[in-house]
């Protein structure tokens, strides 16, 4: 078991270090996210009241799209260098590879969220740094990275690669989108917790289900 966690830590560290040294992925994701916020401003020039209601939706769409951009590269190094086989041989359990990748994808999403939120708050003069909203986004990022890591592990091995990822991922992410936006609107509008509690439950259930399925089937994604 100690070996298991040691491997997990090493793999996550490897991903983060790789990203820290190149910063390719995070820079593009952040630039994309902030540019999208600008585009949204002109796409829907709304009065402040309406905008406040739409904020959770806008934020989530921006985070999800730039997250997809990052997911495309998530397994690229392994695929291009052909290091999948070496990884499979090196770890005690193949599920560790998936879990490590999921954690590093989740952490990158977290950085994205922690930068996008204040930027939005400054640009639109609306404080979105509400702890509960942050929790909703984090739960959304968990579901997103759980389903996304599994699916990007497959699409990276196909001919169409990045073209295919959103087509495969978005239908599966539908419940997460609905739940994040609805729960987010509840939090931001200051509604009673009981009115949007169910959406938070959906996020948790979705995360648990997707994580379980991925741990069960990831073996088939990388091993012949």
């Amino acid at each position: 078991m100690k070996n298991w966690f040691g491997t997990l830590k090493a793999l996550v560290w490897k991903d983060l270090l790789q990203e820290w040294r190149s910063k390719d992925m995070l820079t593009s994701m952040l630039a994309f996210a902030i540019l999208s916020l600008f585009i949204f401003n002109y796409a829907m020039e709304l009065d402040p009241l309406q905008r406040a209601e739409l904020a959770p939706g806008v934020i989530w769409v921006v985070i999800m799209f730039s997250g997809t951009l990052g997911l495309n590269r998530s397994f690229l190094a392994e695929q291009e260098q052909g290091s999948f086989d070496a990884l499979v041989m090196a770890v005690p359990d193949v599920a560790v590879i998936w879990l490590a990748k999921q954690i590093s994808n989740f952490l990158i999403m977290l950085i994205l969220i922690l930068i996008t939120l204040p930027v939005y708050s400054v640009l639109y003069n609306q404080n979105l740094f509400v702890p509960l909203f942050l929790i909703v986004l984090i739960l959304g990022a968990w579901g997103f990275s759980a389903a996304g890591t599994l699916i990007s592990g497959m699409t990276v091995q196909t001919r169409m690669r990045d073209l295919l990822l959103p087509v495969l991922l978005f239908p599966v992410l539908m419940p997460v989108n609905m739940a994040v936006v609805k729960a987010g609107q509840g939090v931001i509008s200051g509604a009673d917790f009981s009115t949007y509690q169910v959406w938070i439950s959906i996020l948790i259930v979705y995360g648990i289900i997707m994580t379980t399925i991925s741990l069960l089937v990831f073996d088939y994604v990388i091993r012949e």
Partner: protein
Amino acid sequence: MLSENKPLKTLTFLSILLVLLAFLMVIFYAPVELNMGMVQKVFYFHVSAAWLGMLAFLVAAISGILFLSKKNLLYDHIAASSVEIGLLFTAIANFTGMIWARPIWNTWWTWDPRLTTMTIMAFTYIAFILLRRGIDEPYKKARFGAIYALVGFVSVPITFFSARLLRTIHPIIIGGGSGEMAMTSRMYQTMAAGLVAFTLLFVVLLWQRTRLAEAAAVIDRLKAEQNAEEFGEVENG
């Protein structure tokens, strides 16, 4: 598998007869609904098509699991065939629904949970087909297809549940409370006939399509062997 198949032939004719019978029942046997009029008759095939759309997903997910445990390509062919048929019938359900919705709801489309879920399901089917088209190696194609079918099959009910939390105006036929649609026994009989006929049609289509997929796989194998002979290469698999 690829030789002449007597039971399949019989079943095919039977399914054609049954679909025709159901069609005649819809036209002549089922009464005209009091409030909605003629357009309500689209409902019988709408329900049957929607049922097949969901059944096909179940079949695809089960064949996917069977493939992952047994590694037999037959299950992959069944899953792929089921998804194609499922996409067709999901589309039929959506379009017949729209034909009905326009006069009754006064709109082609609403964001009702069933409409949303059916359409998301159709997109999951499309994604499944695209994913398999992007892979050449048959076993990898089958593995990835199976995984995606499983993930899709699990997420679609959550989508339905989530969408249902937002209000619905869709008539509830079975197990509903206040929104129930009143149906006479003739209507129920016609609906049952449609469901039986379409289910048999599904079995026939699935069987035929799977045979076609098997034949295609045989041809691919023969082609690969011929190539290997011509170029003196040893192909594996």
